């Protein structure tokens, strides 16, 4: 099989980066079409694998996917150029926009629009809560943690990172107790 050129890899991911809005999950169908259907670089299983891995690793889904597929095709340099490709459209577009945004906002109509947008963004984030909670187990333990994280973040200056550690630790203890209970029941 002919070696895939790094430049092809770069441009494919450049295209993926340039044509997805919202990033992450919105990107997956476009990535699948380009990388699986069109180029045959990866299989549907690979795409699924990336999603599963991304569920249990931190970071940016778009970068996870580019790195994973890039590596599969051409090793380290493959992941390097795929990641570069997926990032560059964002970087260029936002750099250019940021030159204009402050002046743009001086305009009265634009200022009104942004006043409205700030209300919309709050609701956008509320909707993200619904989406995120779909993947969460629902019982007294998890609800207690939701309430704890919510109140702590709202009322104190503690770092979210600390709260994530506390949550992970609580989860490990909870999981261990649950496993033990099951073992006792089976014995």
């Amino acid at each position: 099989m002919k070696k895939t050129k790094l430049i092809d890899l770069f441009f494919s991911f450049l295209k993926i980066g340039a044509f997805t809005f919202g990033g992450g999950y919105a990107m997956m169908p476009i990535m699948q079409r380009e990388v699986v259907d069109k180029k045959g670089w990866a299989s549907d299983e690979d795409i699924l694998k990336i999603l599963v891995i991304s569920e249990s690793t931190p970071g940016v889904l778009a970068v996870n996917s580019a790195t994973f597929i890039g590596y599969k095709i051409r090793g380290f340099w493959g992941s390097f150029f795929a990641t570069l490709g997926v990032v560059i459209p964002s970087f260029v577009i936002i750099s250019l926009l940021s030159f204009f945004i402050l002046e743009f906002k001086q305009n009265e109509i634009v200022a009104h629009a942004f006043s409205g947008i700030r209300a919309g963004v709050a609701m956008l984030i509320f909707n993200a809560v619904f989406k995120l909670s779909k993947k969460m187990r629902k019982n007294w333990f998890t609800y207690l943690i939701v309430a704890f994280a919510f109140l702590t973040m709202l009322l104190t200056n503690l770092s979210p990172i600390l709260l994530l550690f506390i949550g992970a630790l609580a989860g490990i203890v909870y999981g261990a107790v649950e496993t033990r209970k099951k073992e006792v029941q089976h014995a």
Partner: protein
Amino acid sequence: MLDLLRLFWMFFKIGLFTFGGGYAMIPLMQQEIVGGGYVELELFIDFIAISESTPGPFAVNMATFVGMEAYGFLGAAFTTLGVIMPSFVIILLIAAFGAKALESNIVKHAFIGLKPVVVGLVLSVAAMLAFRKMLPLFDFKALVFDATVFDWKGVLIMGIVFGLSRLSKKMTPIKMIFLSALLGIVLYGFF
């Protein structure tokens, strides 16, 4: 140079401690960026709206914005590098050595507790932004607010946009942003 390294480190942390992608990133970003005095809350919210309505990964858009605002082009390069570095390194290791560690019970159990923390954190940002829109002088940490500056137009927009987004699946984030911009122009411009 020290400023650039600080920006890099800030976004490295943000990349490393984001579980659940995109919006799960906002609480930590808000604390580091707004709390750290790099960008004001209003501008931060505007960045979120623009990042959502321009192409590309949300995290990279946000990083580029904040970097540009704080330190120009070089700043943007460092923040972007910072936010993608954890993903890049972790996935490279997994691609090279496999994902056995992820299948351990400890990791699975940790996520039982991690996910609700993320939900609580994101919920708190949503609540904070909604209250701030309604009562612009609201301060949760000091529990101070001034009920005389009640922004009913903001409340109306939030109600309409939220209601529609729950009723219709077609109400994508971009459409929500454009609708709230339109409502903003009408309500704040003519009433």
